[in-house]
């Protein structure tokens, strides 16, 4: 029985411009994809994915299994693009792959039932070439499998050494797709350069079965490598989920109104959703966002608020509070992307729904909401962090928070897939407390150490600025106390008009951050003179926040194209100078507090 979609596979698309059939366009895309052009491959998939999914769903009768089938088919299609001789026959060929994958899933025994002999490694096209293709995993593995003496010779070449190092790191990052035993055998063979006979002895297995293990591992890694390069998710270990939709309860976090630093605010909400309630001030302190302030060197645009290393900061924060976190991140290359200072370091990814939606399902299904960077946020915001707390496969929507819509909102799967900034993060399990000395330390000691870390960060950030800087000549930011000077400079520069809208957001976000700095410092666990100085710093931060609040009242956060009058600029400068004076004093108290603490620790030793 042939399905309708397959029947139509070679029919020209009526929407294509006159003179060019969809088959012509496909053919051109296929030829580009055969050269390794992932953009062209993405475009092909974009055009045919829905029909392929429909086909897979009808074949399997299960929408989740259909997603897996399409994902597998994408990988196989990309891997074997070079074997498609007649480039005009892409669609029937792709459907055949979908059909095969569906049959494979439905058949007992799974996809690795029939293994090919190990000798296929040695018959790869790379065998006769001494050059390693660093983009091709097979070539890398073959290179690895060469004699240790060969490898040692090459180690003298620093470039070769670096590439080997990067390649080892790449392979290590892929190894999670192997079982424990497969991994051990793989490492013994490829990394430790043991012979199959030696490994067989170690594991009391036959040499033949070691070959089979190595071959199977190589196949799995190759597949995983393609999966990673296409931005797809690791293969699910568990069976297909049954839920077609799920909506999590989102309990209100105690911060009301919500914290304007939406990165922190939404992580706090996610934690609250899994019953880990944090005080807003404490979380603003622990995350260090109470002490950050960054301004664009161009004018009073608000983008400095978002320019930091999203991945590193999130990972560090989660580690600090004891959670594993998994992050999905990337940027689309074919549309305007905001916040280049942060996002330009993300890998280019394809508009493939299978690369995003399963990540959301996976977390929501186990009761964990997902941090999401929303570029379709409600005005006056342009883009903001939010939390996805539900999905519905039937309606093809996700449910998420929005700073301007307390009731939340929905976005279509297409909206999520087409987001030019792909940044999603979900909690893993709670990290176990380290054993031994750390575990014996009291809660108070840990809190005190944590406070000292935050205070040291505050001092360093205020005096030296943020250690993250975009690696480009065109995007420059000023942070810490120097950010006040930059801000004042923008207001006093007769040649530029300060951005009124950005001023509104900067003032509101940083006034609130400084208020939280004051609150946080009031609650830190220090003793004696060190604590007295922390309280003085807290008081100075209160006054900083008062001055910034004045600014925020003068220039509220609203969407407007209004221009700041010269008089207004002057008044704003006065408030900023006052805020800088108080924050400088606060940092001075914190420095003394740290010096006293260090002195006490020195005396105590």
């Amino acid at each position, binding site marked *: 029985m042939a399905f309708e979609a397959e029947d139509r596979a070679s029919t020209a698309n009526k929407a294509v411009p006159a003179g060019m059939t969809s088959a012509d366009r496909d053919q051109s895309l296929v030829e580009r994809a055969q050269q390794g052009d992932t953009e062209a491959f993405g475009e092909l998939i974009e055009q045919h994915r829905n029909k392929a999914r429909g086909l897979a769903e009808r074949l399997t009768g299960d929408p989740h299994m259909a997603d897996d089938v399409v994902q597998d088919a994408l990988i196989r299609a990309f891997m074997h693009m070079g074997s498609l001789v007649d480039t005009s026959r892409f669609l029937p060929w792709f459907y055949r792959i979908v059909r095969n994958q569906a049959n494979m899933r439905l058949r007992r025994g799974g996809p690795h039932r029939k293994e090919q002999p190990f000798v296929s490694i040695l018959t790869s096209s790379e065998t006769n070439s001494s050059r390693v293709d660093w983009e091709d995993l097979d070539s890398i593995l073959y290179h690895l499998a060469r004699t240790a003496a060969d490898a040692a010779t090459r180690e003298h070449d*620093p470039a070769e050494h670096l590439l080997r190092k990067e390649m080892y790191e790449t392979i290590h990052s892929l190894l999670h797709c192997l079982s424990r035993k497969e991994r051990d055998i793989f490492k013994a063979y490829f990394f430790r350069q043991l012979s199959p006979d030696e490994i067989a002895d170690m594991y009391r297995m036959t040499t033949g079965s070691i070959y089979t293990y190595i071959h199977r591992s190589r196949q799995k890694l190759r597949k995983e490598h393609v999966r990673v390069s296409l931005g797809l998710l690791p293969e699910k270990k568990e069976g297909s989920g049954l839920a077609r939709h799920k909506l999590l309860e989102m309990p209100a976090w105690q911060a009301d109104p919500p914290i304007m630093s939406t990165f922190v605010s939404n992580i706090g909400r996610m934690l609250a959703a899994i019953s880990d309630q944090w005080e807003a001030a404490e979380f603003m302190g622990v995350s260090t966002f109470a002490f950050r302030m960054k301004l664009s060197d161009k004018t009073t645009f608000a983008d400095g608020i978002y320019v930091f290393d999203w991945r590193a900061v999130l990972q560090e924060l989660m580690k600090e509070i004891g959670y594993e976190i998994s992050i999905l991140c990337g940027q689309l290359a074919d549309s*305007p992307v905001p*916040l280049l200072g942060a996002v330009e370091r993300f890998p280019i990814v394809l508009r493939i729904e299978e690369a995003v939606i399963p990540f959301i399902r996976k977390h929501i299904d186990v009761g964990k909401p997902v941090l999401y960077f929303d570029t379709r946020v409600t005005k006056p915001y342009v883009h903001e962090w939010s939390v996805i707390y539900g999905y519905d496969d039937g309606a093809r929507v996700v449910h998420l928070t929005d700073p301007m819509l307390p009731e939340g909102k929905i976005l279509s799967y297409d909206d999520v897939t087409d987001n030019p900034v792909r940044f999603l993060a979900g909690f893993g399990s709670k990290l176990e407390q380290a054993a031994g000395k750390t575990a014996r330390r009291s809660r108070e000691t840990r809190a005190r150490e944590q406070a000292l870390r935050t205070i040291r960060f505050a001092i360093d950030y205020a005096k030296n600025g943020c250690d993250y800087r975009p690696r480009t000549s065109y995007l420059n930011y000023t942070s810490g106390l120097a950010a006040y000077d930059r801000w004042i400079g923008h207001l006093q520069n007769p040649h530029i008009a300060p*951005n009124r809208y950005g001023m509104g957001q900067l003032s509101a976000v940083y006034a609130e951050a400084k208020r939280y700095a004051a609150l946080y410092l009031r609650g830190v666990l220090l003793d004696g003179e060190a604590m007295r100085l922390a309280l003085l710093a807290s008081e100075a931060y209160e006054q900083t926040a008062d001055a910034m609040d004045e600014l925020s009242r003068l220039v509220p956060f609203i969407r407007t194209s209004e221009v700041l009058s010269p008089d207004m600029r002057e008044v704003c400068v006065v408030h900023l100078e006052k805020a800088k004076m108080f924050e400088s004093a606060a940092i001075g108290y914190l420095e003394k507090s740290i010096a006293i603490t260090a002195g006490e620790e020195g005396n105590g030793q």
Partner: protein
Amino acid sequence: MGEQLTEIRFMTEIPHYLHILMEAKESFEQANPNVKLIIQQAVDDFESAKALESEEPPDIIELGGFPVGNPDGLFIDLTPYVSELKGLEEDWYPGLRQAIGHGGNLPGLPLEIMMPLIMYNKEMFDRAGLTYPTDEWTWDEMMELARKLTIRDAEGRTSQYGFGIGVDIEWWEPFILRNGGRYVSPDGSTARGYVDSPATIEAFRKLIDTYRVHKIIRMPNEPSGLEEGRKHEDAAMNFTFGWHFFHHPDPDHKYAVVGLPKMPGGVETNMLYMAGAGVTKKSANPRLAWEFLSHYILASRSWILPNTRSQALQQGLTNHPVWSRYLQELHHVQLGAFFLSRKWNASRQLVNDDINRMILEGVDVAQTLRSWTRFA
């Protein structure tokens, strides 16, 4: 009862030319009392594109990078309007006209047009007893001069460098182009066969050698001690865009400029930096929007550098010791990878990380450039 006002919304992401824009707004509104210009700011292309989807879409959008080929389809083709202005096509600097019309349509008018030259400190040359360079100089001659102009004390502390250039893939491109190399294909579709070509690798290696072999340039991780805006002062020769002379007027002519040195590949060309403004496809009044745009960019006398030869003449730039030299470059500029491949540009910071590794760690140039084929 007066006629109803027609509003033209102008969205810009460039804050430092607002004074020119405001002057143009004022004069245009005076000449067209029924028109009101509304100026709005956007932080980047994303915000501008988003505004186009709003209920009050801008009629004109000004972007920090000229939208070569109209990649997001935001703009209308201005060719018909341009052809109505007699003599304009012939008046345009040819290299510039060719660049903005790449791909067959004209999505906007360019502004903030600039190229790099080598700016040299005449006093430092005089102190060393060296002859000033001329446009005929070669890369090797430049390196030789830079070596003589680098001053180190007995402990190896450097008080003066021979050469200065920022570490940015785009800024290094003119040397690659002049050597006959490229980062991406002319249609921007691939880096394979271009960034890994022998001519590109050769030119790139020469740039890395300035740090590692000739040691005539400050290392990227070496603090300068000079405050922002004065960092050029400790090098005798600097790779310099013309806007430097806006920020650092040089009434005593302490500095002079000379063309980029000739590379072994022998190609006479330069990179082009330009912003751009175009009439959006959502404009309800495209003709009026075009009239303002041409008033702002083609009629204003405030642009350095301007679009056309007649503007340059009227502004007295053709006789100016610095600007006349920059204007010469407009005859043979070409589009760099920034304009041709958004995908390439999207990985710019990762590429710059690699350049730093080549300079600081000695990572192999050819291998690294081969690995960049994955970026486009």
